[in-house]
């Protein structure tokens, strides 16, 4: 279970990235964020963002039209 869940279904580039960054900013170190998106571009964009911010991508899974990322705040 993640500490925070962020629903970005229906949002497209750059919104899932901006929303994720905003949420991560508010979180404290070690907390986890579950991000749910259906923007296929996020598959590449979310890891690219986390490469920059230094936060960790614990898991990503795709089922049907939906992608779920589990992120740990650095």
């Amino acid at each position: 279970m993640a500490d925070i869940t962020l629903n970005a279904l229906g949002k497209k580039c750059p919104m899932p990235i901006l929303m994720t960054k905003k949420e991560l900013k508010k979180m404290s170190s070690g907390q986890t964020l579950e991000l749910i998106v259906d923007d296929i571009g996020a598959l590449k964009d979310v890891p690219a963002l986390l490469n920059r911010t230094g936060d960790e991508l614990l898991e990503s899974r795709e089922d049907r039209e939906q992608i779920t990322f589990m992120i740990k705040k650095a």
Partner: protein
Amino acid sequence: MAETINFIVKDKSFEKFAMMAILGSTGDAMDMKMNFFFTFWGLNLLTKKFKPKVAGMPTPMKGMGAKIFRKRMKKFGIEDPWGLIKDGVENGNLKLFPCQMTMDLMGIKHEDIMEIAEDPVGAAAFLEMSDGGRIVSL
């Protein structure tokens, strides 16, 4: 030091405006410094009341095209591209520079420029802030 990308915005189209809003806000989210230098027609984007039109559509549809794009982008969660830009400026990562020479050339006064912009700069100031960094022309 944070990575910096410097953009020259030379067109006033809706396309270029949307690109700068999306790239600028994303760069801000990625902790990068994004400088935009608005020159020639691009400076129109920084003037108050200006409404960019879609360059890539036939002439009678350019204005309507921008409205359609805005509406669709709203559905994607982009309420207003200026909102994205403002957030980036407030975070201190995104900076908008009007070109002083273009202002003089086109008779655009300081009060015509949106408050969100930095003070106008010339070519030398822009090149100096870009020194060692990348420059991209939009």
